Structure formats: C-alpha cells, structure tokens
C-alpha cells in the first residue's frame, strides 16, 4: 500500500521522476520551478542519478540531448523564458528521435513577464516551438497527483515513441500542495532496450551509431520528415487522454486544461447548483489534442466556452476541432492573473441568458 503524502506539485514531480528511474537531470534555476532542481539536488545523487546545475537553459537542454543519446532516462525543467531558450535544442532532440522528459512550469509573459502562473506557452508547446516540423507529446496535469502520474506516463511514452515529452504546467500547480500517492512502479519492467541506436561506444564488429539531425540531401530529409509525421499520426490515434466531467447530459461545456480546468470545474459545480446543464472537458494531452472527442460532443451541446490563462491559444484548436458546429466563446486572464470561479460562471450565465433571449423571441 503506497503512502499518501502532502507535497508541492514541483516536488511530487521530482519525486516521481526518481521513482521512474531518472538517471540524470540538468537544469537552471528559475521561478516558479526551482523546487524541482532543489529537490533533485538533495535526493537524486543518493538514489542513483546524476544532477548538474548548468550555466544556462541552453546548456541544460544540450546536456539532455547528450545524455538522452545514451538511452538513459533523463530530464530538464524550466519556466517560460527558460523554455524559449531551449527551443533549438528540443528541435534537435525531436529530429534525432531521442526520448527525454521536459517540464515547463509556465508563468505569465511575454518577456520577463511575471513569476505568477500563466498558460501562455500553449502554442509554443503544441505546435513545435522551435524550428522545423516537429511535435512533442504534451501532457497537462490538473492536480499534484497528476504532476506525479504524468512523469511515469511521460517517460514511458518518450521511450515508446523515441520522442521528447513535455509536461506543461504552471506556477500555481507547481507551488500548491495536495495529497499524492506514488504508485508501485517496476522500473526494469518499463525500461525499453535502446541498444540498437544509443551512442554508448561502438561495439566490436558492429556498426557505429550516429545521433544527428543533419541530412543535407533534401530527399533524405524529406523521408526523415515523413517518418516523423507518421509517428505523430500514430500518437494522434493512440495517445489522446482527457477527462470529461458531467458532459453526458450537458447542453453547454467548458474546455480548459491544467489550473484553468480546476477553476472551471468549480464554476460548473456552481452552475449545476443553479440548474444549468453544464459540463467540462479537460484535455490531459494537448498534443495529441482530443479533437474527435470535442467534435462528437459538439453534436450534443449548444455552445462551448474555452477558459485559459492566455489571450486565447487552445481556443484555436477547439474551433478547428468543432469546425463551426457550435459557437466557441473564449474567456481568459493574462499576466499572471487567474480567473475566479465566479468570473467563469458569469460567462456561462451570459451564454444561458443569451439562449433564453433567443428562445423567447
């Protein structure tokens, strides 16, 4: 029986990484994720892993690129400005098809912005972020428990698809404490044999291994791209994850992820108390996005409200998913502000009163 602990999101994530067999972590301090680095500095060396505070996020991601090439489980974490600095390296990792875990504990931007929570790096996370046609698997935890659970899932997916996996979360989820239970996890049973490609020294009598993202011949590079796109299609088909709350009888749904989804959850509970048939769809994977599920839901609801701590980024994917079937409204706060449940309820109310007017006249 696993024990229940009260932990900060950042610390739960770090602890789960160790339990998932983390072999090396490279990172640079930045608020609001420094607890991750601090926790791992204390714990990882005792438990069989290497840790290094790098000179920059650029160095961190390139250390991850090197370490991941050995086939071991490795990771880095940062917050928004630092994640921008990592984009070039992530593009290399994606092209070279190396498994690794990345964490962006988002804060409000643009620029140096604020250290308060934000969700304004959605586009950067799900559309590639760096140069070239690549994707990461993007996991969006909605609780401290999921901060831990998605680490195991993230490493497993990274190994399975040889792809960088990003946990996209925010400062509030990173800093807040909730109960967390660490599952039994047999590392050995989950490790994938990477010896066919990893650079660990050329075995006598066998071919050398090269990790590169350079393909000067356009025909070869196009094939590399086609291979990557095929992999992303498989991921779209098999790895969509989401949570649906009270959507079965809903005539209106809110779509939100991470912290926004938690606040929206409260708003729909309040709405239900007022007799509104309102539900919540919370994507747990942002890439792949639950497009088909949203499209199907759009057949049964009269409208959708997307709530984000941004100027409206995921709302574009929701609109693409429902393809004009129903109106998709947006409510967002920016700059480190968090929407309150009452604000979201107001938006839901606005929809209902509009519908009432339409039905009356």
């Amino acid at each position, binding site marked *: 029986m696993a024990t*229940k602990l*009260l932990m900060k999101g950042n610390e739960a994530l770090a602890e789960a990484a160790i339990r998932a067999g983390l072999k090396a972590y490279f990172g640079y301090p930045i*608020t*609001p994720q420094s607890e991750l680095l601090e926790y791992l500095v204390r714990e990882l060396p005792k438990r069989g892993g290497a840790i290094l505070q790098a000179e920059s996020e650029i160095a961190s991601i390139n250390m991850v690129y090197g370490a991941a090439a050995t086939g071991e489980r490795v990771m880095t974490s940062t917050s928004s400005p630092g994640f921008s600095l990592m984009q070039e390296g992530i593009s290399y990792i994606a092209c070279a098809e190396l498994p690794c875990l990345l964490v962006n504990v988002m804060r409000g931007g643009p620029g140096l912005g604020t*250290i*308060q929570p934000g969700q304004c790096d959605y586009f950067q996370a799900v559309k590639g972020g760096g140069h070239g046609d690549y994707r990461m698997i993007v996991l969006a935890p909605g609780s401290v428990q999921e901060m831990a659970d998605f680490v195991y899932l993230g490493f497993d997916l990274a190994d399975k698809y040889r792809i960088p996996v990003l946990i996209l979360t925010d*400062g*509030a989820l990173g*800093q*807040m*404490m*909730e*109960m967390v239970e660490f599952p039994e996890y047999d590392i050995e049973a989950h490790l994938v044999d990477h010896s066919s490609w990893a650079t660990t020294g050329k075995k006598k009598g066998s071919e050398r291994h090269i990790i590169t993202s350079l393909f000067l011949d356009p025909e070869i590079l196009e094939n590399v791209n086609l291979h990557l796109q095929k992999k992303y299609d498989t991921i779209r088909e098999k790895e969509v994850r989401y949570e649906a709350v009270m959507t079965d009888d809903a005539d209106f749904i809110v779509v939100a992820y991470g*912290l926004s989804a*938690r*606040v*929206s*959850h*409260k*708003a729909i*509970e309040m709405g239900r108390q007022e007799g509104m048939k309102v539900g919540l769809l919370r994507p747990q994977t942002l890439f792949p996005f639950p497009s088909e599920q949203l499209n199907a839901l759009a057949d049964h609801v009269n409208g959708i409200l997307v709530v984000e701590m941004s100027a409206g980024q995921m709302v574009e994917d929701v609109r693409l998913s429902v393809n004009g079937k129903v109106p998709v409204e947006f409510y967002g706060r920016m700059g480190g502000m*968090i*929407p*309150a*449940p*009452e604000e979201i309820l107001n938006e839901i109310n606005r929809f209902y009163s509009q519908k009432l007017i339409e039905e009356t006249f």
Partner: protein
Amino acid sequence: MTNEIKIAGFGGQGVLSMGMTLAYAGVFEGKQVVWMPSYGPEMRGGTANCTVIISNDRISSPIINQFDMAIILNQPSLDKFENTVKPMGQIFYESNNVINPPTREDVSVFEVPAALEAVNLKNAKGMNMIMLGAFLEKNPIVSIDSILKALKKVLPERHHHLISANEKALKRGMELLQNPVLS
C-alpha cells in the same frame, strides 16, 4: 463538508507553516486537502498568505476568492481579506498586530491576543500555533492529535523538540476562546 480558509500575515509569522500543518492534519483524517501559497517577492518580508481547503469530497478549484474563515495576523492582511469572507463566516484576528478590528457585522469575529500570550509562554514563535488553537476551538475540523502528527511532517527533524512547546501554544489558543471575547 468543505472548509475554505484564508491565512494571512507578514512573512516570518508562520503563516504558510500554519496552513501546511492544518492541511497535513486533514490528510491524517482522510480528507481531501489543498494548500495554495502566495509566492514570489512578496514572500520576502512582505505579506504572505495561503489558502487551505479541507473537504470530504474532491476539491475542484484551488483558486477561490471567497472564504468560510480567515485567520489574520496583521493589518494589511485584514484590509485585503476582510471582505472576502462569506456572510456567516468567521474572522480570527491577532489583536496585537491588528489596530483597526474588523467592522463586518455579518460574520463572527474573534479577537485572539496570540502575540501577548506567546510572550507569556516564552515562545514568541508559537504565536501561529496559538492562533491555530483558537481557530480549532471554534472549528474542530481536525483533532489536536492530527495537528501534532502534522507538525512532525511540517517541522524539520532538528525542530522536533519544539513540538511540545507548540502543543502548549495550541492548547493556550483553545483556552483563549473557551471564554471568547466576542466583539
């Protein structure tokens, strides 16, 4: 049953650890809990506050703007949070640090002279536990035993010898409101 609590004061008054202790005690009683701190530069000597939610059910939003109870350790925090307490809610305030007491009439207000009592107990750092004791006297949502177990988790091991002093402070806080000064 859900209790949504705001705890606020200066950095260094033990605001965050008081909230964490309360939350951990909730864990020991099998409840769902959330502890959400304010973080950032305001922590460095300025005002610090945290939200604690203790519930029998799954907790949706960790972000709330209205609270059932507020434990207030200084004037700026009272000014900021007095109006966020729900009607019929409760405000516990530390009377040495709050010069202008709450004026709301639709909430229960409890004056707690915790700083003074802490000095009397020769345990100035125990002020937060006196406040917590007073709070628990009126809201026995967790037991003192659970609080003491929680302190073992919240305090670093080198401070575990302080737990008995903290227990005294908690009990003193409870006594204070057994004959409450209801304003």
